[in-house]
């Protein structure tokens, strides 16, 4: 395969002229402005370094933001959970707060790469990679998260549903902007969630399919009040099944609703056939199975199991 040969042509070093370590956000933006598009932000680097060596990314300088103060950690603000842009996958996966109030994000973060990568890779970087199979994108989409994008001009907060633009392309320009914060509402008592992942191995592999859902139920009427369903990689971007979500609003909690949702999510998805990762038909089947399994699991957690 020609691709395999390409790997042997990787250079050993990374082709950069400068590696800069700013100590404040202001200093980082000054450097980025000075390089005017020829410098790129690096945090953990587990995505940036292979891309640089592959010549998939070419920049003069790297601006390492890992020394910026107050950018790491997880905290609760009223009913919201706030995650700093430098928080690693390991911190997320191990956080008692995340495990309790957004378990699907802890599950997703714990699936990324390997323990060594999770020790270094940041969740913000996972989002910024724009990979449709990024392990934290799908749960964060289901949690209705929003991100704070900071630049020299100030900051803007955008919902994650507007963040992913195309494969490898997001609303953030990493030669000018920094993802400083991720924020979402903690799960409430009448909500349930689920995260399912299919992969060829349990470690060191990109997922064939990731499903994440959050459902909100009305116990007295045995009805779904709201649902957020996210999948990857079934489209060029991590997908929210918005049509299915609209159809689920106000739907009775029973098997028929779940069967219909599975067909509907499948229609909204557009998985590509791949000789390694599976045919489109196979993936469509798994999408249906995961939708049914995932919705049942989330509904059970919300206290309204489907018999």
């Amino acid at each position, binding site marked *: 395969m020609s691709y395999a040969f390409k790997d042997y042509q990787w250079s050993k070093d990374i082709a950069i002229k400068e590696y800069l370590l700013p100590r404040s956000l202001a200093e980082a933006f000054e450097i980025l402005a000075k390089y005017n598009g020829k410098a790129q932000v690096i945090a953990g680097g587990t995505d940036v*370094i*292979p891309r640089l060596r592959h010549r998939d990314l070419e920049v003069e300088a790297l601006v390492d933001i*890992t020394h910026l103060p107050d950018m790491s950690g997880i905290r609760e603000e009223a009913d919201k959970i706030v995650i700093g842009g430098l928080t690693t996958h390991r911190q997320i996966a191990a956080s008692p707060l995340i495990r309790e109030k957004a378990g699907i994000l802890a599950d997703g973060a714990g699936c990324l790469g*390997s323990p060594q990568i999770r020790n*270094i890779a940041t969740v913000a970087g996972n989002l910024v990679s724009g990979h449709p199979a990024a392990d934290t994108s799908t749960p964060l989409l289901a949690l209705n998260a929003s991100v704070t994008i900071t630049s020299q001009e100030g900051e803007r907060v955008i919902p994650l549903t507007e963040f992913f633009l195309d494969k490898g392309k997001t609303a953030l320009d990493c030669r000018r902007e920094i993802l400083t914060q991720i924020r979402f509402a903690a799960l409430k008592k009448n909500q349930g969630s689920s995260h399912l992942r299919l992969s060829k191995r349990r470690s060191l592999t990109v997922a064939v399919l990731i499903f994440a859902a959050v459902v909100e139920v009305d116990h007295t009427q045995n009805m779904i009040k709201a649902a957020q369903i996210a999948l990857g990689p079934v489209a060029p971007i991590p997908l929210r099944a918005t049509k299915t979500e609209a159809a689920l609003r106000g739907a009775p909690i029973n098997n028929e609703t779940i069967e219909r949702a599975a067909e509907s999510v499948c229609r909204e998805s557009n998985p590509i056939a791949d000789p390694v990762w599976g045919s489109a038909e196979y993936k469509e089947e798994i999408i249906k199975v995961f939708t049914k399994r995932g919705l049942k699991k989330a509904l059970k957690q919300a206290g309204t199991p489907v018999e």
Partner: protein
Amino acid sequence: MNHVELSFKLNGQDISIQILPNTLLVDLLRDRLGLTGTKTGCRQGECGVCTVLLDGDPVNSCLLPAVKVAGRSVTTIEGLATEDGRLDIIQERFISEGAVQCGFCTPGMIMNAKALLDREASPSETDIKKAISGVLCRCTGYRKIVQAVKSASEAKE
């Protein structure tokens, strides 16, 4: 490109060295410092044979720009034995349990096992499997590797 001065703790000793800022940690260790116990396999974070400990946590040294370790502590496979050459218990048990086949993944396996045993005195088999899940052994000798780590943890108790 200008050289920069990098100071960090390597296997318990403070060192300072002039490096080019595009150097990756694995190349600094192997090519400049002669510590070839750390291996390079895939060079893209997928095989784990380049694992070293950064402040006690396992990381892929092939993905880490060397400048990132400034002021921090790095432990490589060479740092496990005592000064008089006595092997770490994990190394001893890898030998006695026959957990080494071609040996290429062994430093990666041992460094991940070391990080596990440093924080968890009596890990379960699942804990051990999870701890070494970021290293590929293409001789597929996982069974004996898990046994060796288990045996080392029991010897430590």
